[in-house]
């Protein structure tokens, strides 16, 4: 029990958010939304890490979250740069249009 809330609840909550992110990645065609859904997945992980950190009373979990945030920021920066480049060339960010490389 953390603050009276079973750890299972946190696990389930982050699993659900994580899966919503996964569904989003699968269900959308807009690259930006897909990106956002990946952020959603990362946040689910962050939540889980913090919950475990509190559970174990161990700060390293929270420190790890910092790194995830840093990575997420870096990824977003690079990702959005690539996205805007793709948009410049394709005039769209529809992932289904990006299928020249195949077979």
């Amino acid at each position: 029990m953390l603050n009276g809330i079973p750890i299972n609840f946190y696990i389930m909550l982050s699993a659900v958010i994580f899966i919503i992110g996964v569904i989003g990645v699968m269900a959308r065609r807009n690259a930006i939304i897909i990106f956002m859904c990946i952020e959603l997945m990362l946040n689910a992980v962050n939540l889980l890490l913090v919950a475990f950190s509190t559970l174990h009373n161990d700060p390293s979990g929270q420190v790890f979250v910092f790194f995830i945030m840093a990575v997420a920021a870096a990824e977003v920066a690079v990702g959005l740069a690539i996205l805007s480049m793709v948009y410049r060339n394709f005039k769209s960010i529809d992932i289904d249009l990006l299928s020249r490389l195949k077979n």
Partner: protein
Amino acid sequence: MIKLVALIPLFPLLGFIINGFFGKKISKNVSGWIASLAVLASFIVSLLIFIDLEEHKEMTSHIVPLFSWINSDTLKIPFEFLVDPLSSWFLLIITGIGFLIHIYSIGYMHDDEGFSRFFTYLNLFVFFMLLLVLGNNYLIMFVGWEGVGLCSYLLIGFWFKNTAYNNAAKKAFIMNRVGDLGFLLGIILIFVTFGSISFDKVFTIASSGSEATVTAIALLLFIGAMGKSAQLPLYTWLPDAMAGPTPVSALIHAATMVTAGIYMIVRSNVFYSMSEDASHIVAVVGVATALFAATIGLFQNDIKKVLAYSTVSQLGLMFLGLGVGAYSSSVFHVTTHAFFKALLFLGAGSVIHAMGGEQDMRKMGGLKKALPITFVTMLIGTIAISGIPPFSGFFSKDEILAHTYEHSPTLWFFGQLASMLTAFYMFRLLYLTFYRKFRGTHEQEHHLHESPKTMTIPLIVLAILSVVGGVLGLPEFWGATNWMHHHLDSIIVQKNPSILNHTKEWTLMAIAVLSAGATIFFAYMVYMKNQILPEANDAKLTGIKKLIYNKYYVDELYDFIIRKPLDGISVVFYKFMDLQVVDGIVNGVGSAVTGISFVVRKAQTGHIGLYIFGMVVGIITILFFTFIK
């Protein structure tokens, strides 16, 4: 003296080498005489050895080792010769008749372009034939056995431009190989059973083998003999083998090679004596062949074919003799048969020579005057083969039939029948060829001439031998000594003394002579008195005549049950099994790879959505099988 035995095959081998390498460079006569002299030298050595052996009766068999040939652990096969009464006798026949035929060939083949080649082959043949009888173990015998087969192949197909001759040669070789396989397996069975294949070792311990094994050995060896000696059902090659030059027919396909089967069985008489069943089969096959071939001989028009069927028939009689245990009688008949059948063939050759290559008796006739020597000698040969006393054929044939009667009157009856038929077709041959008026073309008539001396002298020598050959085995109930019987005494383990009373023997003899006389008279009635001629057109023959004229359609039958299926199976194996099934599977794997590649490749659509989808399904599957299942 005995040690010189190695020289016997060496002379023909030298002749073969000289003619083979230098034949084209030396003149025809020289090469012919080199070959003949080589055989003569062998004959002289053989004679010396034979005399030597006769003089020192205390030791009848001598082994002359040469070198060790094949060794494999317990299987030791030295290259060594065996000199004993049997082999020494056969040496005399081979080199003696061989020499005469060589001489004859000088004249007969004189105009042929392959003259030196012919003598090369002939010498090689003599070499292998000598190996066959000299070897002290079955494998050396086999070497000679196959070697003479090869020479037979080469000589039948001597005129290689002719496709029919080539086919005959091939047929002879392949059919012989069928027998050879049996022989080979027999040899191996002997090794497996007795641990050796040397005659001296095997025969001393032969009694240790079980009867079933010995029967198997005997039958396997007999399969070999069937092939080489043209017995049912492997006889069809021999009539076809007449495609070769006539001296070849005389030497190989009458006097020597075809009797190799008899030599082999006499050599292995230990096994046949032990196995009742095997002997019985030999006798039955022998008599069946004798009768069967004799009937075919009745209606043949080709002079050499008649002689060929006659040879098959006579060989059948010899096997009958072997089957009833009369080994020495068979050897006796081999000897006399060698004399008169060689004589007949050479005579026929002389006729063909005179006729300019014509072999069809329907186109001959009245040659008596043109070819007096040939006629007389052939007449002697015909009488001898028909079994008229006191010519040699009478004695040998009578001995076999007497032993057969002792063994089984039924077999005797058929043997006697075959013998009667022999007299008929032989006199038919004589009448059609030498009597009545000439039926050939005018040109041929103009061309008729007696053969040169090189050809007639062998004829005369053989005629003399055919007349007096009977002294080798005079019937013992006449009070005479059967020399042949005594000579081979040490070779034959199970003696076969006559148990018939004299009356019976006289009766049998009388039946033989009377039936032969009657048949000759019948032939006289048909061909001389009634002037009947064989149907000129083969197609007009009907009924049983047609059946027999066409040799009971045995060749066609073999074609139908062996060659066609073999070709059929081969085509099925090749076109279907190999190209479709086996290779098809291999190539199928190849195309399957391509096919799968194509499909798998399609999964790579280029859509990120699908890729993610694939990943997620992968994850679900992993988790599912790990945790839920």
